[in-house]
């Protein structure tokens, strides 16, 4: 009898539990739906867009970092002198409405928009531009890591590109260069060289990182670290009728599955970092729409050339032969990627399509290992990024495939991972044998891939492999000053041949990052740089 009672009790508990759980599920849905209804559809009320993304920004002063999650926010707070196109990296007027270039390419004169004000009420004018460039040029690589990469160096450095920035009158700025720089305008359009209010950054750099003041369509409201960043409409924005939204909340949801779930139940309106495997699901859901970001990135396996046995070219080439890229792309990018053979994607001019890629050939890899004096393989650490990145949706999974590929040719790889910031820091110090990493181009120029990632000037910042080559160094510097497009492309094509032979990387894939949005979202155009301007976004 006692047993019978126990069973019926268990049954009742189960029923109660299931009802309670079912109720929970319903509640969640209703709440989510009504939330987005409030924010989106009713035209009279405030229109709030919640943008879910994989990580938090590290700073809100874009000139201080090289990291994409920051630019995703700051591109909406700040503006640059010239802008990129809506979905490409062509040059369009920004804070400068027009400009002239001297014939020798050494003088640029910008005519600025009139009547533009910073969020703090101060005027945007030629003096503000001068003050911003003076601030950057007076800094160092620790402060403004990207400035020296793009403009050769700081005040007093021999290789610095910019000689002077002067205000000719209230609305005219003149840039004088020491040597011509082909991608100069593209560099100026990058989010990190956006113009800040000089009054605001004069209060101190560390304070400014948390209280950004720009001229952009949105104003900064608050930043809850690792949770959310809120920005609101700039009522005095100089472009009539923009922005269309009243408020944007950037929420950090590190887990891809959780972020997709939040999108499905309407907790967020837009999500980046959608798993390739979930793309089809979003396409088939009538409440959602799928966005494809134009591909301008590369995911790679870097081989630290200062660490044996990767100091041997044969070993690096063997790694290239050993890894089965096609399987990786089919399985973990669901085919939404192009196989990589060069360090930059084919959409960028200067891409060398004549290069014959290393095919998947374990036998060849073994031969090369034998030539290098390592017939029995070796042991190594294989570093895999702990977080999903746009160029690599699931680093640890891909690492497992690579681990197996390497085991097949006798190389024993141990997969190692650290927290993301530590990972980058340790890798940049050259502590990894081989590490997975990637890059999303910031201005669509070959220089922004090849020179930034593989030149000796950038060892310690973005050249994690410590690769050094005199020939490519010469080619890169020559290409920077070469204004003739065809000649410039030739130089880059030649550099790619050398890089292919030296093989400091195993280039893996150029992925097409996916985003998901609510079906009633309009005007959202994903930008190839990964920083999306949201001023045209609206709800139906």
């Amino acid at each position, binding site marked *: 009898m006692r047993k019978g009672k126990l069973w019926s009790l268990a049954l009742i508990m189960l029923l109660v539990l299931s009802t309670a759980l079912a109720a929970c599920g319903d509640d969640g849905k209703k709440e989510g739906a009504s939330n987005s209804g409030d924010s989106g559809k009713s035209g009279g009320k405030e229109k709030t867009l919640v943008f879910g993304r994989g990580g938090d920004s590290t700073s809100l002063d874009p000139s201080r970092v090289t990291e994409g999650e920051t630019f995703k926010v700051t591109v909406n707070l700040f503006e640059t002198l010239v802008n990129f196109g809506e979905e490409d990296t062509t040059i369009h007027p920004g804070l400068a409405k027009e400009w002239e270039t001297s014939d020798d390419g050494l003088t640029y004169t910008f005519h600025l928009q009139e009547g533009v004000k910073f969020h703090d009420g101060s005027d945007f004018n030629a003096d503000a531009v001068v003050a911003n460039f003076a601030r950057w040029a007076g800094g160092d690589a620790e402060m403004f890591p990207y400035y020296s990469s793009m403009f050769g160096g700081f005040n007093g450095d021999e290789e610095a590109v910019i000689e002077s920035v002067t205000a000719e009158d209230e609305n005219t700025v003149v840039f004088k260069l020491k040597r011509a720089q082909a991608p100069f305008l593209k560099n100026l359009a990058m989010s990190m060289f956006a113009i800040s209010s000089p009054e605001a950054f004069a209060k101190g750099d560390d304070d400014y990182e948390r209280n950004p003041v720009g001229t952009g369509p949105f104003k900064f409201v608050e930043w809850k670290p690792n949770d959310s960043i809120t920005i609101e409409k700039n009522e005095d924005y100089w472009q009539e009728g923009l922005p269309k939204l009243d408020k944007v909340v950037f929420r950090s949801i590190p887990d*891809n*599955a959780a972020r997709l779930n939040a999108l499905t139940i309407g907790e967020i309106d837009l999500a980046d970092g959608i*798993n390739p*495997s979930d793309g089809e*699901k979003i396409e088939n859901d009538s409440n959602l729409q799928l966005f494809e970001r134009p591909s301008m990135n590369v995911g790679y396996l870097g081989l630290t050339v200062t660490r044996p046995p990767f100091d041997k070219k044969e070993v690096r080439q063997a790694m290239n032969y050993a890894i089965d890229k096609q*399987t990786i792309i*089919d*399985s*973990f990018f669901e085919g939404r990627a192009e196989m990589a053979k060069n360090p930059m994607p084919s959409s960028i001019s200067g891409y060398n399509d004549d290069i014959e890629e290393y095919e998947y050939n374990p036998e060849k890899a073994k031969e090369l290992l034998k030539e290098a004096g390592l017939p029995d393989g070796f042991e190594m650490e294989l570093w895999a990024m702990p977080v999903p990145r746009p160029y690599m949706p*699931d680093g*640890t*999974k891909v*690492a*497992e*495939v690579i*681990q*197996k590929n390497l*085991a097949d040719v006798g190389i024993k790889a*141990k*997969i190692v*991972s650290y927290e993301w910031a530590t990972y980058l820091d340790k890798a940049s110090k050259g502590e990894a044998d081989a590490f997975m990493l990637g890059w999303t181009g910031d201005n669509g120029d070959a220089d922004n891939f090849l020179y930034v990632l593989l030149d000796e000037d950038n060892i310690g910042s973005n050249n994690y492999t410590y690769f050094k080559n005199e020939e490519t160094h010469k080619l890169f510097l020559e290409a920077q000053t070469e204004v003739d497009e065809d000649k410039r492309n030739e130089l880059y094509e030649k550099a790619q041949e050398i890089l292919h032979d030296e093989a400091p990387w195993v280039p893996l894939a150029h992925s097409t990052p996916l985003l998901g949005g609510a079906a009633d979202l309009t005007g959202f155009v994903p930008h190839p740089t990964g920083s999306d301007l949201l001023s045209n976004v609206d709800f139906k």
Partner: protein
Amino acid sequence: MSELSPKIDGIAEGQIEKESGPWRDAWRSFRKSKVAVVGMVVVVFFVLLAVFAPFIAPQGINDQNMADRLHPPSAEYWFGTDDFGRDILSRIIHGARISLAVGFFSVIGSVVVGSILGIVAGYYGRWVDIIISRIFDIMLAFPSILLAIAIVAVLGPSLQNALIAIATINVPNFGRLIRSKVLSIKEDEYITSAKAIGMKDVRILFSHILPNSMAPVIVQGTLAIATAILEAAALGFLGLGAQAPSPEWGKMLADSRDYLQSAPWTMIFPGLAIMLTVLGFNLMGDGLRDALDPKMKS
């Protein structure tokens, strides 16, 4: 789980010392409980799986077959395949080795260390007792999984370090159990007489007190294997335990999270394996407790 000890304290010492009688009684009463026998059958089943894993498993643990990735359960792959096209059945069978080994060895570790500390604390008392007991209290003040995470974070993530962490967090449970048992035994007359005839402390401790304190440890140990398996799975899930490509069940669960909706079998089977082993050890442990507890005897 130290609340078990007062119940078991009542075992008459003589019963255990003469091996056959009391143990046979215990087995008889254990057998009476059907639930406990079911638990034991489950445990034995998994132990056999673990021991003969290489002979039973149809495939190796890291035979990647990308053409058949995320294949649903079928005649060829009984439990389906994971996102690397590896046979889940084979991985679960090999995973039994890892989980049972972690469960078993971590408990042995905590029993050995816990027993020594518990006996010393209980027998010598005074400041030795105070120091050891306070250390136990401090360790018990932390949520056990948090302490385990902290230990692994210091030592670095690997299966071996996960085992060490799990063994460490369980030490105070056994230590306190033994200490309370020793406290009551050392007042018994046969210990007093052993002291009176001039027997050395070490001999009293290891040939009289220790064997007489073992019954509750066996019960607690069986139950602790279950929690240890769960904790190992939790650490594996968090990426702090076994590393790729090891087929640890918790790690298999974590790796399959993205496929919860599209390929549920990748999560269901490792989850079931964890649940069944833990259930098996718990049922068996409950049965053992009833069998070894004289108060439950009718």
